[in-house]
């Protein structure tokens, strides 16, 4: 990747996608790409703070975290993981379609991505509702006596359980928020793709939007084992 700018190519300024302050389309592409990667770095630090708190408390209150982890649905979590991975596949294929100028394919793939994204949120909603019904949502009606009953051989302190669930909701909630933003972005991308705005000469938004989507996927790939798969082996 070249650091320095190319010579001014006045002919390029007839390109409607080229913004005025860029000398060449290549410069604009490289700029957008670097911008998105840096933004994703900030997102890593953003989630990182909460991961840090999670790691500390998991180390101290392993029993409550393990029991809490077993109380959330591993099936729904696994399905969601598959859903997200499929959505990243459709995104990656979509970028390829854009590069090759296949508009119809691009639109279908983006629509599929949106479907997967919405499905993910739907399943997450079901999960959260399950937790709500079981009184595992931190707050006034928080009650983990069912968990305590399920694991008589270990000692469970309800307030430590509440820490687990607080972090569960905070982390999956932040992730879901990012998913919603991603769905918003991809809605715009789908619309503009349908309008024919993207093709081999200009598909930067698809590429960078894709990067964002992949990042949100990767966050989930970390969240899933950390939240759902603590101590899934049979209890001693």
């Amino acid at each position: 990747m070249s650091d320095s700018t190319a010579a001014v190519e006045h002919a390029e300024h007839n390109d409607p996608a080229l913004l005025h302050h860029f000398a060449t389309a290549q410069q604009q592409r490289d700029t957008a790409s670097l911008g998105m990667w840096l933004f994703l770095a900030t997102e890593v630090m953003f989630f990182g703070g909460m991961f840090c708190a999670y790691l500390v408390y998991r180390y101290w209150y392993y029993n409550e975290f393990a029991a809490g982890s077993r109380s959330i649905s591993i099936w729904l979590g696994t399905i969601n993981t598959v859903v997200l991975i499929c959505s990243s596949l459709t995104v990656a294929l979509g970028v390829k379609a854009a590069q090759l100028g296949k508009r119809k394919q691009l639109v279908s793939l983006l629509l599929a991505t949106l479907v997967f994204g919405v499905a993910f949120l739907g399943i997450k909603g079901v999960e959260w509702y399950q937790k709500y019904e079981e009184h595992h949502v931190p707050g006034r009606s928080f009650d983990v006596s069912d968990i305590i009953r399920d694991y008589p051989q270990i000692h469970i302190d309800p307030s430590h359980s509440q820490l687990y669930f607080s972090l569960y909701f905070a982390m999956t909630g932040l992730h879901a928020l990012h998913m919603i933003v991603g769905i918003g972005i991809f809605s715009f991308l789908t619309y503009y793709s349908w309008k024919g705005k993207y093709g081999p000469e200009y598909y930067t938004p698809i590429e960078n939007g894709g990067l964002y989507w992949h990042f949100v996927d990767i966050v989930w790939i970390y969240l899933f084992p950390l939240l759902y798969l603590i101590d899934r082996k049979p209890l001693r």
Partner: protein
Amino acid sequence: MATAAVSTEQRENYLNAEYGIRSWLLTTDHKRIALLYLISITFFFFVGGFFALLIRLELLTPAGDLVLADTYNKLFTMHGQVMVFFFLIPSIPATLGNFLVPLMVGAKDLAFPRINLLSWYLYIAGGLLMLFCILTGGVDTGWTFYTPFSTGFSNTNVAEAGLAIFINGFSSILTGLNFVVTIHRMRAPGMTWSRLPLFLWSTYATSIIFLLGTPVIAITLLLVVLERTFNLGIFDPTRGGDPVLFQHLFWFYSHPAVYIMILPSMGVISEIVPCFSRKRVFGYKAVALSSIAIAVFGFLVWAHHMFVAGISLYAALVFSILSYLVALPSAIKVFNWTATMYKGSISFSTPMLYAFGFIGLFTVGGLTGLFLAALGIDVHVHDTYFVIAHFHYIMVGGALMGYLGGLHFWWPKITGRMYPEAWGRLSALIVFIGFNLTFFPQFILGYLGMPRRYWQYPPEFQVLNVFSTAGASVLAVGYILPMIYLLWSLRYGKPAGNNPWGAAGLEWTTQSPPTTFNFDETPEVTWEAYNYDQIPMPEEVTLER
């Protein structure tokens, strides 16, 4: 006050290219956005300053007799929050940085002009929420928001303040993003990394901290807000939470944040000193690399704020030794600036006076940092006025003086006008004197044992407090004067040419003020930075009176 045949205002520039409030509020011109920021942060500076005034008035007497204890606690909290988050952190980057980064690299604008405007709106949104928070009762947690006081005991607008800073944080992040990408991707042909002005090296280092540090305070404050709102217990020791974890998360950002506040100022000094010594910077590479070193090491020292917080002895040792390492690059810069003046041709313009002040006061501030990094001393002076004196020497004596120096230095470029030099020098002198009177006694107060954040204090501390308050009133004059004469100069100041100082740097090759798109043709850089051997000394600017 003779004007040129074609006065600079009549030529089209970024100020007169378009008129009307929409052209300002919907602008994507980095220079206009810089001015929007300039107005907003000046406003918040005076808000924070007002709180400081009340604090110093209260501290004239040992008894708490001016305001209630709760009010005093709100005053120092809001002074800290407003000054740190809404003034110091954005100050140079958002005003001088926004204005100068594209000009200095030879570009037409920043990489992402619309995101730049979004940054400003985020700053305003955060600022408005902070104002709302202040006007509806304030916050009293200290700018440090320590738990469990902030999460479980304070009855004030903690969540609103946390959210205000959270929103403001995204303004910082996007600004940093813009700068890093611009410096990487939009340099003019021939503008290699080793030809970059040192202001850009400092800005680059600052932007790295913006990007990597700010998200951590964002998530930390978010957790505090969630805990207060939903009664979660993440930092509540009665429910298994750890208040010291908060401190680690908080300081992981807030220590690098102090480097956000000082690095840009150092960059300004690196521009002013060569110009008014007519020499290239001594040790360009050393200064450039020092900026990066400060940013990197700055991330490794956060727990030096926690030596008595209950961390282990061994952790304390590690953070102490790292704190000495981070002091080293700053010392190197001071030596290099001093050496730059050797065999130079020095003139004492207002910016240069501020630069001298900066070097002196930053040296004192930095050396007192050595006291604090020494574990045995820190136990005694932690959370006393010694710390307050130390960081005000750096943030006010250093960062703020650099900001004022830079403002004066680039004022002709930004506005097309010269400010009145005599008033400029007088204000610089008043600031220097007032500042030392205000804050030097606080070193002594701290070592004598006066704790921070005290509304009332034992009578034996009164004399030094009175000195400090007297100094503050002088300092205030030094800040109000530039407000007046800089505004005056907008209409009555002598029109400035392209390069009144005879300074090096691409920004000085454009007209003053620049056109909207900065350069008619993309410049091609074939010279090294600070080529003062090639730039003639300015004849037309009278530096006497």
